[in-house]
């Protein structure tokens, strides 16, 4: 029983981290039909902004308890500057192009942002470990877990739940759904589609930056941080179905739990299990678990 609880706890924590990283990716694809490789850069930028601001905050002797708010501010600051710049400055001129072309453009932007990060922060690692250990720990099945992990789980629930609520219960969300279904008709009905694209790209990127910012106290923030995340995020959204919010949640949960089972019981399989799950899902559901039926346009 203890083993099962430990597997579940580890699986849920990993799933929460994965979901935070991946949910913005699926939102941007759902609305804008962009496979956004730049998402990994926003994760890395969030981590760098978070660790820099938190480090400066703590170094000035300011209350460590507020460092969690500083992590949010870091993610917000970097996203509100960079995301609109990319969307308005580059992507909006490319929407008429093929999806593959836009994918390549976001890949090029990813490489540019990687180098920009190196120019600004250099290649040395950054640490801000204080927020991770500050809240103490709780026990599951006799194993200590830092309470900070609960913040990650809460962040995943709030971002996923909030996004679902916004899409279904608010005016903005309903208009966004109409843009998802048909941008041309939405434009004809008077919706400012460009503004919704800007909002979606910024909000999706913010979710990635928040993921990076809140991960920063647990890792060494170094160049290349976003590479691993973007690969895993793609695996999660592909399993769930590109553009599907519940799909991303289920995909993250499946990957997290299966990986946790492997780590505890068959560690030698851990390396390949995520991609095995992805392959199996795609073998039987080529468009992912929650793929939506595509209306045929004439």
């Amino acid at each position, binding site marked *: 029983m203890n083993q099962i609880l430990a597997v579940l706890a580890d699986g849920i924590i990993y799933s929460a981290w994965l979901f935070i990283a991946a949910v913005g990716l699926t939102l941007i694809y759902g609305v804008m039909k962009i496979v956004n490789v730049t998402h990994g850069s926003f994760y890395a930028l969030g981590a760098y902004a978070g660790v820099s601001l938190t480090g400066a905050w703590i170094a000035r002797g300011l209350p460590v308890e507020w460092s969690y708010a500083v992590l949010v501010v870091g993610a917000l600051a970097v996203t509100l500057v960079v995301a609109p710049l990319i969307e308005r400055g580059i992507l909006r001129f490319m929407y008429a192009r093929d999806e593959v072309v836009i994918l390549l453009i976001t890949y090029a932007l990813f490489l540019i942002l990687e180098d920009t990060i190196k120019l600004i922060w250099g*290649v040395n690692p950054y640490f801000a470990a204080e927020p991770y250990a500050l809240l103490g720990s709780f026990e599951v099945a006799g194993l200590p877990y830092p309470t900070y992990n609960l913040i990650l789980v809460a962040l995943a629930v709030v971002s996923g739940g909030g996004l679902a609520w916004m899409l279904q219960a608010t005016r903005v969300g309903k208009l966004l759904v109409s843009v998802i279904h048909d941008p041309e008709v939405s434009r004809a009905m008077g919706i400012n589609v460009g503004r919704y694209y800007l909002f979606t790209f910024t909000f999706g990127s913010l979710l990635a930056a928040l993921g990076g910012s809140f991960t920063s106290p647990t*890792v060494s923030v170094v160049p*290349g941080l976003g590479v691993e995340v973007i690969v895993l995020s793609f695996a999660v959204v592909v399993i769930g179905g590109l553009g599907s919010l519940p799909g991303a949640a289920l995909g993250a949960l499946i990957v997290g739990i299966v990986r946790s089972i492997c780590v505890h019981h068959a560690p030698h399989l851990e390396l390949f299990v995520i991609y095995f799950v992805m392959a199996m899902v795609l073998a039987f559901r080529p468009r992912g678990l929650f793929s939506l039926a595509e209306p045929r346009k004439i």
Partner: protein
Amino acid sequence: MNQVKNVLACAFVAAALAPAAALAQQSVKIGFVTFLSGPAAAPFGVPAKNAVEFVTDELNAGKGPGAYKTKGFGGAAIEPVIIDEAGSSTTQVTEFRNLVQRHNVDLVIGYVSSGNCLAIAPVAEELKKLTNFFDCGTPRIFEDNDYKYVFRTSPTATMDSVGAALYVKEMKPNVKSIAGINQNYAWGQDSWGDFEAAMKQLVPNIEVKTSQMPKLFAGQYNAEISALLSAGADVIHSSFFDGDLEALILQGGPRGLMKRSMTILTTGETAMHKLPAQIPDGTVLGARGPFGPYAPDNQYNKWYSQGYQKRFKEMPNYASYQMVQAILGVKLAWEKAQAANGGKRPTNEQVGVALENMTFEGPGGTVRMANGKGHQAVMETVYGQTQRKGGKLTMVNVRRYPAEKVNPPASMKAADWIKSGFKSN
């Protein structure tokens, strides 16, 4: 008229380039290859690059210590060409060819990644370019092949794993179980394989509780730490390096991992300068040899560690020590070959003959090119445990193991030597 103009232009260009060509002939152009980007840049690449800059400046100014007083290489200035090791092994092979065939370097010193070393060795041999590997650990390079132009002035990973096992046995004589967390590629697998095999020789009934092999640069280790805590092994072994090592310390420390089991981090020295407050007391740290805090109190170490700290405002880590060792070893061989050549500039072949089986002193102590038919270095190794004293991280319970005890004899492969119970022949 046009023809005259062309001739004059050519003459002008030739005249302008002549001094540069003469300078190039006088200097010794060395290609240095290390990580300048990616996750391995901070712990290895940048400290190694700093070492190159410090040592070449010192040697070119004739400020080297003891046996290294001669300016540059035998009086010729060192001209470094530093390139990035990031990218695939295929990229590195291309870059190596560029260094040799376009930059016309006299020799190459470099490579952190074992995969890159394995890929470069046959190319160096094909191009007949003297190449000295400064950091990579795989013992397979000289076990599987004989090379004329390839050398490694740092010891292999076998030394780290056998040294770790000897330390565990000495500090925890009643050890009953072990567990491991290592990166799932050649370095991690070989390190764990050697440690496990060595422990089985030292404690025949040792129980292996779990061997975690997460993906390289995975970054998130909560589940692995839970599995290790659940296993409750007496000793945990890890050869994690760079950001993975730091993430393991950051995530494992607050969960009491290093307190519950004696945790031995074979490359842990690179983290002790960055995370002194996060490494719990009692953690065993290795430095891949007698480097960093374990370096001997000799004139070379004083020159290097004090000079490095003064210039870069930080402590030099083991990767930077290995780079210094690589440069000093080749310098000594170059000068020995030059002397044997009547004071004339030596060929790569002559430098190779001089470096074979050479013994030299460096900031890490004595280096003997004793294995791999005189192409592979052996050294003593050292392990110790962390203890915070007055807010500073220090090493206690330090144990040194002589080279013969932690390296296979020249005639044996590392795995066979361990399986034989560390027999000398």
